């Protein structure tokens, strides 16, 4: 009795016909879906790779950047309509697949998609290239001469699955650089890039033909090596283990962008803890911790709370506990595996036992489950958590001292949410920037990196292109070969 709606968790050029699939039924909102996952071997992957590369050569490579921007924008505009069928499909299925609360997914996706509108893409391009048309043709340089930027013809993207939609940013980068793409998605969230490409297909099918998105089990070396061999550039997201494994297998001459695991933190100054501010401050920090269940690198794992506010750091921890409980009631945290739950029980036990013999440690946690945990310590330090809404709160005399605590962890630092008065803003950002933090934002917005940001402190498009220079004198010298020149 099959009333199933088949949803393909992959996107391939029309010319590719796969034969082997695995199916996974999902029942959501009264509809029986059947998610189709492809089962491919090396040879099929190579066929796909050849197809997208060729499709790119005959079409995507010929488009001016401005036109690509317009087409992406059109696809996004489709998506910004709440009634758009693909959007509704995403809003139904992504929560079911990932376990995140459905309202959370709906709101975050909405916000995120807007960061790919034309105006933002233009910002993104202008941020990195003085003249974005440098991607299309030779353009004058300030230093004389001309240059042109060539994006890689092929990019192999390796996506992680923790936060829905992050894959899109990578694919859009590739489109702007006129690169063919093979995107390996994680089995834990393979759907959103597929739906995005389907939207793009509605706008310009030939454009979407240069893109392929396929899920397979991470560590399938045969497939990954084939794709690495094919890609002129490799972009990998994932744990340090994943990144190291890919690095080892990527020849030195290929461009490799890697985004490993990072830790973010928030700094709360006592000026944000006055009687009139503290409630809002607590509320915002709880948002930062709870969105996508803290799975993103941008979410804080550590909060430094300055002493001498109307709320003591310990009371802050208690208040944060209250806010996390209320957030959980509003947007329940996803169900975890036994291992993930046990990791939280372990860290709770570790500090709870300490708290029995010390006033300087306290653990506040959800009663009947592992939904949220706040670990308070009076002695400031730095330590990660198993995520899923588990956070350290440290008391600190002066926020500026956090720089000392963080300086040994430079390779892992990512974002810092701030709540400080204007007079301190620049000194704190300078201190922390020096030890490795590469993004500062207001609390409450930690999960929304703005378009054009330097991901992990690096450039984006610039890292991927090959700049070709025409030297200053070339033009002038060649003039004399024009018959008409005297």
């Amino acid at each position, binding site marked *: 009795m099959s009333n199933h709606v088949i949803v393909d968790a992959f996107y391939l050029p029309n010319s590719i016909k796969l034969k082997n699939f695995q199916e996974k039924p999902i029942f959501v909102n009264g509809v029986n879906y059947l998610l189709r996952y492809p089962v491919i071997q090396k040879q099929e992957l190579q066929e796909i790779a050849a197809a997208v590369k060729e499709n790119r050569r005959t079409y995507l490579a010929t488009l001016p950047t401005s036109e690509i921007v317009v087409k992406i924008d059109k696809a996004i505009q489709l998506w910004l309509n709440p009634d758009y069928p693909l959007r509704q499909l995403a809003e139904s299925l992504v929560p079911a697949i990932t376990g995140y609360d459905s309202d959370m997914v709906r709101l975050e996706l909405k916000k995120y998609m807007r960061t790919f509108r034309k105006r933002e893409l233009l910002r993104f391009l202008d941020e990195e290239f003085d003249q974005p048309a440098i991607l299309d043709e030779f353009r004058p340089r300030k230093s004389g001469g001309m240059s042109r930027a060539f994006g890689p013809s092929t990019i192999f993207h390796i996506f*992680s*699955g*923790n*936060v829905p939609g992050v894959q899109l940013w990578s694919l859009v980068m590739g489109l702007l650089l006129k690169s063919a793409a093979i995107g390996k998605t994680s089995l*834990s969230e393979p759907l959103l890039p597929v739906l995005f490409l389907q939207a793009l297909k509605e706008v310009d099918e030939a454009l979407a033909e240069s893109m392929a998105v396929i899920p397979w089990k991470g560590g399938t070396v045969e497939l990954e090596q084939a794709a690495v061999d094919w890609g002129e550039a490799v972009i990998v997201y994932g*744990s*340090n283990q994943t990144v190291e494994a890919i690095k080892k297998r990527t020849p030195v001459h290929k461009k490799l962008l890697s985004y490993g*695991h*990072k*830790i973010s933190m928030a700094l709360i100054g006592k000026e944000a803890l006055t009687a009139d501010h503290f409630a809002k401050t607590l509320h915002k920090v709880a948002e930062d911790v709870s969105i*996508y*269940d*803290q*799975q*993103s*690198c941008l*979410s804080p794992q550590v909060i430094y709370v300055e002493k001498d506010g109307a709320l003591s750091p310990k009371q802050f921890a208690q208040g944060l506990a209250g806010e996390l409980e209320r957030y959980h009631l509003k947007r329940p945290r996803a*169900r*975890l*595996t*036994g*291992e*993930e*739950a*046990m*990791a939280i*029980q*372990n*860290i709770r*036990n*570790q*500090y*709870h*036992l*300490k708290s*029995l*013999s010390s006033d300087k440690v306290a653990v506040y946690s959800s009663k*009947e*489950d*592992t939904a949220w945990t706040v670990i308070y310590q009076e*002695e400031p*330090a*730095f*330590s*990660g*958590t*198993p*995520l*899923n809404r588990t956070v*350290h709160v440290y008391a600190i005399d002066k926020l500026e001292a956090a720089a*000392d*605590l*963080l*300086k*040994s*962890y*430079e*390779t*892992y630092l*990512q974002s810092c949410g701030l709540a400080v008065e204007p007079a301190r803003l620049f000194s704190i950002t300078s201190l922390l920037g020096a030890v490795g933090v590469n993004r500062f934002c207001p609390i409450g917005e930690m999960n929304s990196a703005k378009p054009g940001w330097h991901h992990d402190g690096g450039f984006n498009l610039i890292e991927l292109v090959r700049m070709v220079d025409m030297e200053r004198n070339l033009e002038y010298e060649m003039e004399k070969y024009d018959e008409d020149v005297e």
Partner: protein
Amino acid sequence: MKERAMAITNDILLFIDKYKEGFQELEEYEQDFNTLSLQLFNYQFQHNLPYKKYCQTKKRTPLTVKHWLHIPPMPIQGYKELTLSCEPADETEAVFMTSGTTNPEQKGRNYHPTLRVWDASMKYPFKQFVMPDKEKLTMLVLSPAEDLNKNSSLSRYLSNAVANFGTEDSKLLFKENGLDMEELIKELQKCEQKQEPVLLIGATFAYVHILDYLQEENLHFQLAEGSRIFDTGGFKGQSREVEMEELYQHFQAFFHVSRSKCINMYGMTELSSQLYDKTILSSCNGEVIHDKAGPAWVRTVILDPETLKPVEKGTKGVIAHVDLANWNSCIAILTQDEGVQTDEGFQLLGRIKGSEARGCSIAVDQLMQAAEGGASFS
């Protein structure tokens, strides 16, 4: 030892004596178990102050706990962090410590003001599960016994096994320099010649080294019928990891001991009792069952890692034990092992380590490497 401790240990010894061969009347047993466990809980709440604090923070006190399932289990990490002892910790007959790390600060400690209860708890189940069909066996002990390590519960266990149930030919083969491989071979040959059944008994990882040696020297033994092999404790980084199935195959090949005569003991420093495979016991009666079980004074419960509430039979979860013999520390403990309850007992599935989380979680040791001895961290 104080009078109150004498009284309580006597109660436990009576229980052990009454139920050492199991129970006839289920209801009576359940009542006796519940009564004694609540009595012990009350005792520990009064005298084990860190545990008392722990219970207060869990809002489970003798006033509010009416059934042994509600006694808050102490996570085994507590045995490292806290001094869990009803009697003064410096007035005990023995202190058993966990192995694993060399750092003495990080060892878990279980204090035994008297070893009477521990010894009694060990004795009957050993007979029942390891040698239900024999009064005495020649035992070849492959790991350090008590003479070499007073702080190891396994060492005392081995010494007790020999003292209670070993023939005069039994030998302690682990000397100060390590396992005396040559003497082991000699003893095995002796027993093989005499066709005398033998019990090989030691830590799991010891067998890896022995089998490697036998492989190198190309030695095999046809041990007599009734011989059996006892392992415990896992590999603990002391040898390479081997699949247990592979180990059992080697036991057959090198010792001629079949799977049905191999038994694993599940114990820990944090407990005062042990649990066993039912393999040997069941093989004497018919169909071989490998599930684990323990004596009547130990209850093993599988908890949902999310809620720490008991799960249904057949569902995986984290293992907790209530061991009435653990009177001086905490009768209820929460392990970091995963298991599943079955009709015949339970199956031990392995450690639940901290997970490889989906998101940007960075393991503590990775962070520590980054720090390279720099900033202090918790």
